[in-house]
């Protein structure tokens, strides 16, 4: 078994401690940089009185972004966030088209052409007691 003399031991110790404190410092910097402010991430959007959206209307709600549809079945809302990389899709012939990488969706949100792999999301919509339309984009 090789013996570790005092000089080598101290060298090893110094190196080890320097590495350790360097790693700790780096970890602290990464933690520092990873802070995200507590955003008021809105879990619901109040779109005002339901009678603003008559039967048969399709309204673009840019702040979500979503398309609010009022038909015989009631209110429905389709998310316009492309499931590929998050651009906002445009209404186009035969449904929706993404401006970034050309994904296409049919009017029900199903993918008709890639690269998107998942359909557009349907969002929960409610009309509350006050008669206002509320969209819940998180669920």
């Amino acid at each position, binding site marked *: 078994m090789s013996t570790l003399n005092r000089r080598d031991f101290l060298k090893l110790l110094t190196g080890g401690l320097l590495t350790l404190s360097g790693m700790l410092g780096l970890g602290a910097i*990464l933690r520092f*940089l*990873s*802070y*995200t*402010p507590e*955003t008021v*991430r809105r879990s619901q959007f109040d779109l005002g009185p339901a009678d603003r959206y008559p039967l048969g209307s399709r309204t673009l709600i*840019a*702040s979500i*972004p979503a398309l609010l549809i009022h038909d015989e079945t009631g209110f429905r809302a389709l998310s316009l966030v492309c499931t*590929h*990389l*998050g*651009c*906002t899709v*445009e209404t186009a012939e035969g449904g929706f088209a993404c*401006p*970034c*990488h*050309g994904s296409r969706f049919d009017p029900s949100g199903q993918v008709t052409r*890639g*690269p998107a*792999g998942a359909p557009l999301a349907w969002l929960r919509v409610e009309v509350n007691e006050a008669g206002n339309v509320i969209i819940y984009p998180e669920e």
Partner: protein
Amino acid sequence: MRPNFFHHLHPPTIPAEQARWRHTLGAGGTAVFLVLVLLVTGILEMFYYVPNPQEAALSVQRITYHVPYGWLIRNLHYWAAQLLLIFASLHLLRVVFTAAYGPPRRFNYLLGMGLFVLAFLLDFTGYILRWDVEVCWPLVTGTNLLKTIPLIGDFLFRLAVGGENACESALLRFYTWHIFALTLPVVILGVWHAFRVRRDGGIAVPPPALRPNPERISRFELVRREVQAMLIVGAALVVLSVLFPAPIAPAMIGQPVLTEEARAPWFFLWVQQLLKWGDPFVFGVLIPFAILLALILIPYIFPPPAPQDVGRWFPPSNRLAQVVITLIAVFILVLTLVNR
């Protein structure tokens, strides 16, 4: 006189081969000059640019349309940045095609690759600083790509964006990365890279015994050629800046506008084209990184070029490396041209 860094880079005489345009393309030296232009014009822009989502695009407009010579400063900064990517790429191609990356230059090749990556990151962050309606989707897709990386993706996204929504909160982060956290490494690595060129024996040429031309040129001749190159490139920058203004678009305030087609900046058009083919992680992260890794590993996976081949164009002993980098270059060029 005590030798200084300038003398280190310009020894009393150097082999004439090392300073031939047709040998070096002047690409590395031109890149250094472009970085100097970028530093000066960038500092000048900082006097007026406001890194605040409400005011950023307006301050760019102020620089462009109101500040005396602001348009010139901004256009010079823009064109120097675009040319830097082109000359850095030419420099990389030259180094591989003249077998200049073998030992003892392997470490300096790594430094160069580091600078190459930093140049692209700086160009992208600078492009985002315009903060107008054209940059939102490239910013969203670029930062959402980070999220697709397993395990560390969310962390990287927070590091880059500092919030939930890139088009609302990324500006200050990108500003700090652009102005300081990427620029400082470029300066440090750049000085180190230039230092190592000389330390490794200057620009790669065949060893003295195998050199067809024993001629040497003096320090003064070298400096004369450098100044000549700077004048030519400087004049080209001014002409480009006067004839072709840097892109500008209406301010991005609040919601991103709807567009029929969103285009990536020209140097990432090839990645945008890749992304049209499917899964973002595979096409937007894995493939570009595989390409980068292949470039970085060229000096390590291919056999070192034969001594008589070092510093010769298209020598036989590193054919494989030449083929690999040509394929990569053609692949990227074709994708860029296809994406329209």
